[in-house]
């Protein structure tokens, strides 16, 4: 399972990586912002993406919109803060499959990841 982490904070990425490792997912690529993610994703062909909302250069929502214009299926989990919650609907409309609000516990994140993957038919295969 290839997973792309898009977050400008190294700490957050490390936490996410640790959670993913506990779930047994170790094929992880990291990107610092939406721009970085857009350049890395096509070659990496992620099967799941965790995307932070608030990032420099290109924010998460813009990235999701850009990505969804070419790829309709990769499951995306948006990492948001309370402040962006009112805009989550917007993200969902853009094609986000699930979201998690910061601060979150590792359990919550892993639950969201499993939930999202369970709904993706490709992940089962």
């Amino acid at each position, binding site marked *: 399972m290839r997973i792309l982490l898009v977050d400008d904070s190294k700490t957050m990425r490390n936490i996410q990586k640790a959670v993913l490792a506990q779930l047994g997912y170790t094929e992880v690529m990291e990107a610092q912002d939406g721009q970085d993610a857009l350049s890395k994703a096509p070659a990496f062909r992620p099967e799941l993406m965790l995307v932070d909302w608030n990032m420099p250069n290109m924010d998460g929502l813009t990235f999701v919109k850009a990505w969804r214009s070419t790829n309709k299926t990769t499951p995306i989990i948006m990492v948001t803060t309370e402040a962006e*919650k*009112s805009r*989550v*609907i*917007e993200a*969902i*409309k*853009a*094609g986000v*499959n*699930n*979201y*998690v*609000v910061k601060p979150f516990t590792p359990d919550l994140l892993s639950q*969201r990841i499993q939930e999202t993957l369970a709904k993706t*038919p490709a992940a089962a*295969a």
Partner: protein
Amino acid sequence: MGHGFDQEIVQDFLTESGELIDQLEGDLVVLEASPRDPELLNKVFRALHTIKGSASFLQLTNLVRIAHAAESALNAARNSVVTVDSAMMNLLLETVDIIKTQMQQLGSGQDLAEPRAELVTMLTAIGEGKQISSAGPHASAANAAPAAKQETNAKPTENAPTQGPSVKKLVLGPGKADLLEYLVADLDETMNKVQASLNQLAGSENAKGGAVQLAETCEQLSRCVEFFEFAQMGELAGAMASAAVKLSQDEGLVAGVLPQLKSLCALVTTQAEGLKTGEVRELAADDVLGNLGSALAGMAVTSAAPSATTMPPAPTISSTDTPLAAEPTDREATNNAAKSDQAKSVDKAADKGGEKHGAAGGENTIRVEVGRLEALMNLVGELVLQKNRITALTRKAAGVREMEAELAEAMGLAAGSLDRVTSDIQTAVMRTRMQPLDKLFGRYPRLIRDLASKTGKQIQLVIEGGDTEVDKSVIEELGDPLVHLIRNSADHGLEGPEERTKAGKNALGTITLRASHEGSHVRVLVMDDGRGLARERIAKKAIERGLATQEQISAMSDREVFNFIFEAGFSTAEKVSDLSGRGVGMDVVRTNIQKLKGSIELSSQAGNGTTVAITIPLTVAILQAMMVGVGPEIYAVPLTSILEIVRPQADQVSSIGGHQVMRLRDSVLPLVSSAELFEQPTDRRSEQPFAVVLQSGQKQVGLMVSRLIGQQEVVIKPLDEGERTARAVSGATVRDDGGVSLIVDVEQLVRMAQGGQNR
């Protein structure tokens, strides 16, 4: 034989009713897709009525009984007492089958079978205004139940009396409950956008823009609703989204689809309203969805060709009340809108039906016995021969010195116009025998419907080029092969809906029948978008059957391997199914096609489906031929098989394993000496400077000849079987100089040459 009527009258009845029943069958299938189409109902009713009338004149009691029962059931539908649902449709189709059987029995002088009493009872009950629920058409209840269930699309609510929407308390997980207030606010906005886009679509100012906008909004809506896992709302939004996407690709669909979209929009708005108060509303929407589906499918086919059928989901309406009439909130607004939209869509469908069926019914035709046409055809054949002789004589006369130039010129002119008139007559006579392939294709929606319900697959049949005309004999010979090919596609080619969805395909499998003219040939394609053929399995089977060795197979192209399917006794289906795969079939298909002087080719791509291409000459009796000379003899080679004619140089020709071959550009061409082939003295064999390059299937062979004489239209006279197979000769013809020429059977020739090489 009990009726004791004049054979001629019986024959007339059979002919007339046979056509009616064919038409009836086709119309019934269309009726299932738009069950309230009054025109169509009338037409079907009238057809049955006519059959019943004639039958009662002939005192065919058993036929009258069943026809009467069906007629009264249809009458109830016509008067909107009952609705044609799939259960009723099954009864009607069974009726058609019974009448057909009875007519066959009548034709062969047997007594007519009694119709199944239950069927008559049920039809009569419908006639009395009782909507039957789920009882299937089959005798055994065990058999009937699953069939009916499948065909009613397993919606138990369907036939129950309509009630208000079921309202459930909204239950959401913690991550989703938080967002509900935002969702509700957003839904308001989104539905307004949808409404605006719909208006723009209707306005036709910038329909395209509206459709694109609609598609985008609906997709967003669908994602949103799916995230919250509102099952039905998601289904509706999804349907809107996919319809909108289709609209944005094909604006021509707007008129047909718009009303359904509006209805859906109203339904979704109602549901969105419900969410505000924490309710999840399940609304009766199958009707609208069904209509939307058929509107999309029906229209899609209209743009390509006259008919198409989508099976299942068949739209079924169980009650004369529209389910929309019972909505609880905003009842007035939505209800009225939905009702009027519904009405419109029905009108629309009726218009279409009326046009189409009106055209078919209003043909000005006289019925001519086939025998007379055959005779005419033969005479035209003779005429062509005589014309050819005249043309030849004229040419000869022009070379005679004593002939006056003026006379020669006049003869030439006369011969020229005779030539033209003859070919016009030939075309015209041939056209009398021509019939549109629709006559054949019209049978297949029914077939698809049965196959779909038998296999539990979702299959749509798309027919393109049904107006392509072919010779009557072609229609007759083509019928069985096509049935077999379609069965194969439905049974083995197309996957079940789950497998298709898993493979990322539309759950609805498509079988396409496409006919077109290609020069003097007609090409019929049977395509499916199923799983395609498995080269390995066929190869394995071919080796098992001893048709080829492993080495030979590995050198073969996919196409060559696939063609093993046409060998006798070859079936890759692991288990014998009711539908196909009995080990006979594809070889019979090929034999039938070859009888028509046609060819059949198969191509397939794993995962992307299989295409069978049948190419048949427009007519079977007259052939464009190249006349070639070997010694004193002249032979006719079918022009369509000739790729080119070359004059091999000595250094191009060599011998491999005792067989002559020539290098032709990059390939090696086996050569066959026609002197040898036709057993002429050996000394002639060296004097064959020309190689006629012939193709059959993917194989080529060069036929060495001494002289090239020219092109001619020849009329084929059959030879007896033994003569043909032994000598690679398909028939004989009388030349314009009165001599007799044998017609080279290219396929047989190529096979012989290949066989020689393999040995």
